[in-house]
C-alpha cells in the first residue's frame, strides 16, 4: 500500500458524495492508502484564480503544505479543476524560490506549516492508468464490464494546458480508454471527448454552455455508447444534471448515464452499490448496467 494525501475537493464533499465513497472503496484495491486532509479548503475552482490570483496562490499553498505535512509525496485528486489549480500553484511555488519564500512567510503568520515543494499533485486517473496502479486495477476489475460500450469524456482541465498537466498528449489521450479496456469494456471514440462540457459558464452563460454540453452527449449516443465516464465531478454535474435542461431545450430525449471514473472501475471490481450510490445520479445508470448483467 502506498500512502497518499487525499484531497477530495468541494463536489466530492457535498453534491457528489458518491465520488468520495466510491473512491474510498476503490483505493485499497489499487494499492492506495488515502490519508484524508482535515484542514483544507476549496482550491478556488479557477474562480478565485481569476478574481484574486494572489489569494488563490496562498489558498493552494496552504493545501499543499498540509499535504506535505502528512509525509506523503503525492497529493491525490479526483477532480480535473482541483488538479489544474493545485498543479499550477505547485509549479509556481516550486519554480520560484522568491515567491515561495514570500508565500511561506505569510503562511507562517497564520500558523500554517511551510511548504518546501516536495509534493506531486496527481489525479486518480493517472494513478490507475499506468505502473503499479494499472497492474492492480487489472486484478481488481475481476467482474469485468462484459463489453459495456463506454464513452470516455476527459474534460478540459485534465489535458490542458499540457505544460501544467503533462501526463498524456492532450490531443491523443489514452488513459481512460486503457482503463475501460482493462475493465472489460469497449471504449467508444468520438470527437468531443477532449472538449469542454460548459460547466465553468453554466451559471453565467447557460445558453453558451448548453451549446457545448450537447456535443459530447449527442456524439457519444450516436457512436453507440451505453454509458459515459468522466474523471471530473464538474463535468459529471453538467453532463448528468444539466442533461435535463438540454432535453427541455431541444425537445429530445438523451438519458445517457454518466459515471465517475471510480464508479466505473468500482462496477468492474464488484464494489457494493451502497458505496457507488447510483441513486444520487439524475440519469439513473442502473438500467444500463443491469441490462448487461454487469
Amino acid at each position, binding site marked *: 500500500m502506498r500512502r497518499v494525501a487525499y484531497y477530495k475537493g468541494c463536489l466530492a464533499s457535498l453534491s457528489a458524495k458518491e465520488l468520495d465513497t466510491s473512491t474510498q472503496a476503490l483505493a485499497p484495491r489499487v494499492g492506495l492508502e488515502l490519508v484524508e486532509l482535515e484542514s483544507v*479548503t476549496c482550491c478556488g475552482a479557477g474562480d478565485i484564480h481569476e*478574481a484574486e*490570483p494572489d*489569494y488563490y496562490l496562498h489558498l493552494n499553498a496552504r493545501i499543499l503544505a498540509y499535504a506535505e505535512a502528512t509525509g506523503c509525496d503525492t497529493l491525490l485528486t479526483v477532480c480535473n479543476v482541483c488538479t489544474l489549480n493545485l498543479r499550477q500553484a505547485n509549479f509556481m511555488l516550486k519554480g520560484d524560490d522568491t515567491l515561495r519564500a514570500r508565500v511561506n512567510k*505569510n503562511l507562517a503568520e497564520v500558523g500554517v506549516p511551510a511548504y518546501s515543494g516536495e509534493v506531486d499533485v496527481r489525479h486518480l486517473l493517472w494513478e490507475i492508468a499506468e505502473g503499479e496502479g494499472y497492474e492492480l486495477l487489472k486484478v481488481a476489475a475481476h467482474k469485468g464490464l462484459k463489453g459495456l460500450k463506454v464513452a470516455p469524456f476527459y474534460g478540459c482541465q485534465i489535458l490542458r494546458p499540457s505544460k501544467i498537466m503533462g501526463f498524456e498528449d492532450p490531443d491523443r489521450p489514452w488513459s481512460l480508454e486503457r482503463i475501460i479496456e482493462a475493465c472489460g469494456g469497449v471504449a467508444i471514440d468520438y470527437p468531443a471527448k477532449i472538449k469542454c462540457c460548459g460547466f465553468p459558464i453554466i*451559471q*453565467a452563460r447557460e445558453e453558451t454552455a448548453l451549446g457545448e454540453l450537447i456535443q459530447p452527449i449527442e456524439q457519444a449516443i450516436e457512436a453507440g455508447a451505453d454509458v459515459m465516464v468522466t474523471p471530473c465531478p464538474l463535468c459529471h454535474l453538467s453532463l448528468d444534471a444539466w442533461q*435535463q435542461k438540454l432535453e427541455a431545450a431541444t425537445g429530445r430525449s438523451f438519458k445517457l448515464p454518466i459515471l465517475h471514473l471510480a464508479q466505473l472501475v468500482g462496477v468492474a471490481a464488484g464494489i457494493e452499490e451502497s458505496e457507488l450510490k447510483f441513486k444520487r445520479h439524475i440519469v439513473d445508470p442502473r438500467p444500463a448496467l443491469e441490462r448487461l448483467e454487469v
Partner: protein
Amino acid sequence: MQVALKVWRYDAATGDRALREYEIDAPEEATLLDCLDIVKDKVDGTLAYRKSCRMMICGSCGMRMDGAAVLACKVRMYDVAQAGQVPVISAMGNLPIVRDLVVDMDPFWDKFKAMKPYLQPGYDRPEDGREYRITQPRMDAIKKEALCINCGCCVSECNAMESDPEFLGPQALAKGMRFVGDPRDAATVERLEQYSGEHGIWECTRCFFCNERCPKGVDPRDAIAKLGAEAIKNGIDRDMGAKHAKWFVRSSETTGWLRETELVPKTQGIVSSVKQMKFAMNLISHNKAGLAFPPHVAKDVGEARQLHKIVREQDRQGAFGHIQGERALAKLAHGVHDEGRDPYGPGSFPKPYLPEDTE
C-alpha cells in the same frame, strides 16, 4: 523524404468538398508549408492557402493538422513522415471557409477592431518633454500579450465561440489585455466595462484550447484571467461571471468549501433563481443540492480568512497577481513531460476524429 498528406479541398461557390491525398518528395527539414508549396508547384496548382513570411511572424498560414490548429510554417514534417503518418490538413475552425485552406478573416478582424487596439490618449506625459518610459515590471504585465501575430489559431479552437459565434474570443481579449495593462493607455476602466459585456471576459469557458494552440506563447486564457482580475479590482463586477467568481472567494473564507446552494442566487440574483426552482427541486430530490446542516465547515478555516486579509494588504490584486507566477510557469514546456512516450507509438490512442475522415 517521402511525405503523404490528405487535404480537405473546398469550393464555396459550388459547395464541393473532397479529401485529396498527395504524395511528394520533400527535403528532410521541410515544414508543412514547404510541403504544401511543393504540392502546389508540382502536383496541383489549384490548391489554395495563405502564406507570406514563412518564419512564424506574419500569422498568415494558420490551418488545422489532424484537427489541431497550427502555423504551417512552424510544423516540421520529419517525425510525422518517419512515423508513416498521413496527417489530414483542413481549414481553421470557427471562421467561414472561402476555399480549401483559406478562411474568411472578416469576423476575426471585426472583433479585433472592436477592442480599440491602439492607445487611448490622455495619459500624463513627462513634463520635461522626454519620451514616456515604462518600467520593466509594468512591461512584464503585457509582454506575452504583445507577442500575438493575429494568426487565429486560438480562435479556431475556441469552444465557447463554437457555441456563441459572437463571443469576443481569445485573440481579441488577449489584445484587450495588452492595452488594459499598458500604463500609457488612458481608457482602462472604459475598456474593462466594454470587455465585461455579454460576449466578453466572463463568457470564456476555460477550455484552455487557446493556450494549447497559440504558436507564439501568448496564452490567451491567462490574458482573460488577468482581465477578470483587473475588472474585479476596479469594481467592475456586475456580470454574473464576476459575481460567481466573487462567491468562491467569500465561500473559501467563511466555510472553506463552496457554498453551493447559495451560488445560484449569488450569481444570478433572486428572480432568476426562483425560475430555476423546478430544476433545483429535482437536484434536491437526488441529494445533489440543498442546505447542509450542520453547515459543512472546514477545520481551521480561520487561517484562510486571515490569509485573505494578509494578501489583500500586500496589494497584489489584479493582473499583478497572475504575472508573479509567470516566471515559474515559463520554465515548463508544452506537451507531454515524459520524453520517452511516443505520441504516435504503441499505447497512444488514434488521432482525433475528423468529420468524414474515413472516406
